[in-house]
């Protein structure tokens, strides 16, 4: 690994290094999609942080599970399956309009984008409403015992993700409806990408909170 050229021997230099432009970047695109755009990587960063938060809640869940002989503890009915399963289905179905408005955004097709965004917002609002009902279907108050606390922690942690995604999609829908700046098309596509993550990361939480009490 030899060094090209000669290293300045003593101390450096007064003036700054002059810059000689040799390449012109004026006709590079300003709106790009997918991992070429900066906000996509920012979302990946937040996904990593949120995945770590959820994993901390799941670690606490399985740690507390180890402390009990019977899970859920005696006299605590296991959570109902009806409302949570419907909420899970609605969440997964809400990915369809997400995919569609992402594809429309990539084609800069405004009417299709706006139409599917509103569809996605409605489905996510339904999912949020169902999630609020899910808290009661846990069949236990958060301060009853450690089982209740960790179950509520997992569901509430993901609830904040769902709420954030719903409100972000709502904001983008309103923006696209009223102002429709071209730069926001890649933002819309990346919002769909975040929705995929948000729904995907709910699957292990759903299994943990609703199915594990039945299997263990």
């Amino acid at each position, binding site marked *: *690994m030899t*060094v*090209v*050229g*000669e*290293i300045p021997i003593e*101390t*450096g230099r007064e*003036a*700054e*290094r*002059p*810059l*000689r*432009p*040799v*390449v*012109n*970047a*004026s*006709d*590079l*695109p300003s*709106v*790009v*999609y*997918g991992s070429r755009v*900066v*906000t996509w*990587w*920012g979302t990946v*960063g*937040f996904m*990593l942080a*949120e995945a*770590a*938060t959820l994993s*901390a*809640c799941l670690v606490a869940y399985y*740690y*507390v599970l180890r*402390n009990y002989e019977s899970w859920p*503890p005696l006299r605590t009915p296991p959570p109902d399956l009806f409302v949570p399963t419907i909420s899970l289905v609605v969440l997964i179905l809400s990915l369809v309009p997400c995919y569609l408005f992402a594809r429309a955004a*990539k084609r*800069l097709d405004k009417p299709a984008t706006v139409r599917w965004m509103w569809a996605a917002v409605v489905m996510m609002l339904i999912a949020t409403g169902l999630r609020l009902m899910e808290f009661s279907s846990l069949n236990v108050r*958060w*301060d*009853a*015992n*450690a089982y209740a*606390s*960790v179950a509520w*922690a997992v569901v509430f*942690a993901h609830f904040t993700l769902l709420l954030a995604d719903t*409100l*972000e999609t709502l904001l*983008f829908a309103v*923006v696209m409806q009223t102002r429709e700046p*071209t*730069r926001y098309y890649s933002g819309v596509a990346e919002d769909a990408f975040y929705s995929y993550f948000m729904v995907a990361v709910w699957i292990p939480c759903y299994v943990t909170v609703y199915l594990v009490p039945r299997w263990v």
Partner: protein
Amino acid sequence: MSARPLPAEHTGESDPKSIESVHGRLEHVWRNGPGLWGWLTSVNHKSIALRSIITAFAFFALAGVEAALMRAQLARPESSLIGPDRYNQLFTVHGSTMMFLFAVPMVQSVALYFVPIMIGTRNVAFPRLNAFGYWVYLIGGVLLYAALFTNTGPDQGWFSYVPLAGPEFSPGKRVDIWAQMITFTEIAAIVAAIEVIVTVFKQRAPGMSLNRVPLFVWAMVVMSFMVLVAMPYVATASMMLAMDRLIATQFFNYAEGGDALLWQHLFWFFAHPEVYIIFIPGLGMVSSIVATFSRRPVFGYTAIVLSTVSIGFLSFGLWVHHMFATPLPQTGQSFFTAASAMIAIPTGVTIFCWIATIWSGRPRFDTPMLYVVGFIALFTIGGLSGLFLSAVPVDLQLTDTFFLPGHIHYVLLGGMVFPLFGALHYWFPKVTGRMMSERLGKVSFWLLFVGVNVTFFPQLLLGAAGMPRRVYTYLADTGWGGLNLTSSIGAGLLAVGLLVLVVNIARSLAAGPPAGADPWGGETLEWAVSSPAPDYNFAYIPIVHGRSALWADTGDLDAVSGLREDRREVLQTTMLDAEPDSRHEHPDPTIVPLLAALATGVTLIWGIFDPIGFAVGGALTFLALGAWGWPQKTKPNTHEIVEVPK
């Protein structure tokens, strides 16, 4: 570097006049607004990072005063200078400040200041998020110190073991204030980590492929990934503790199925990577200093990068060596002894590479290089004393004794503060345009070096003598008086050394000799621009041809033109080979990040007293984030070039 052949508009010589006009236009577009409003709305990475560095130094000074008070109390046995309650607050706030309000924010601010210039870009990837991060950090710090100054500071220790920190044995809101301070600093740390990662991945100068990224930047990226994985664990654990105290959740209540060890696992899974998060940037700073002052690139670039990455991974596998005295299974504990030993190998390799660099270089031992040698001397004592603590049987004798503060301070003062002070002397000319005095620098170095040894080596001996840690006093017949007095005298030395450093900074700011663009003849891009660097860093984005950007050729630097000069535009390049990929317009200065930070502040501080605070505050925060996401008015003659994926 095969940049796609673009029609070069003009390849004439760069005459200063065109630079002048370019400089004038760019300066007009990129500068902060005037006065206080400009200060509050700034989104320039250097002004925010400098502000954050000064704030972190202020917290360092406050924590230093707390340390001095503690050493004054422990100088003599049975002294009644400070009572137990006040002393417990002092050591808790000293530990929490140093870990959460000084160390992590300082290394991240140094990263946010120098990484963009070193990789040849004009600003961090998300300027408003950067401003938001600083304001949230500031609110967290002010909250903790408002509590300390009104005698309601947290008093349960910086790792806040339950059930002492639980609702029954820590009455009042002291521990809640600590828990929310953790939430604030974690948000700020995660945000800064995302900034560094995305800026390095997407905005490197053309030609700076991954194997040409400076070692300092590599260290900061590894640190940022560790932050993204470790910090959420303590944010979750502190929120669980806050909810246990506020709405009676049962996470840590053993009578209702919770477990005190759950807190210890969650906290130490974060806290051990945290001390490596604090130490790895120290490696980055030492790499920069050693290269410049040995007049040669650092030996074993690949070895150091691989070592840094492996330290990052290994640090997540060691946390149980903080819990050897708890009823965990014996076999599990010896696994963690082996893991703790393994992490010494990459650290060793990194230090050997630096010694090889000095060996084969032409080193000039100015103050920064002195701090590097001080780092090697002190950090190795810290590492070796760590060997005692990772061996289970010896740890059972030495954990929770004064051996611990000895070990921590050797590792953190040696591993982070000495490289930081070296970096301070190294980059002070670049930040302020003035040189620091070498004489005062050497005086402060030797005062600090001797001070650290006189303060903390006696603490290692006190640990062996059986003195428990976190004691506000000790009996006269224990025989620990002499060593404690020596340690307190050492603390005095440290204080004098820091005072000399502050005098050096003040004098150099006022009347230091002008530094010019590149006083040390460095190899990385920050020495290519004037000191202090203009708001936009580079008139034209430079093109990099080798690992040592400025040593590759001493003539003019090739550059990329064509970015708009009437907008805040930044060049984005591909991740692996840094080929020009797209242009991105950055937002203008805006007050919205401050509003969002205040809304988050209201949410969390109100949430200390009433859970309704989270709901109402959450709505407020959403409104602020809505204003943040709302598109600005499209400016005249905007023509977006869209590249739709096939």
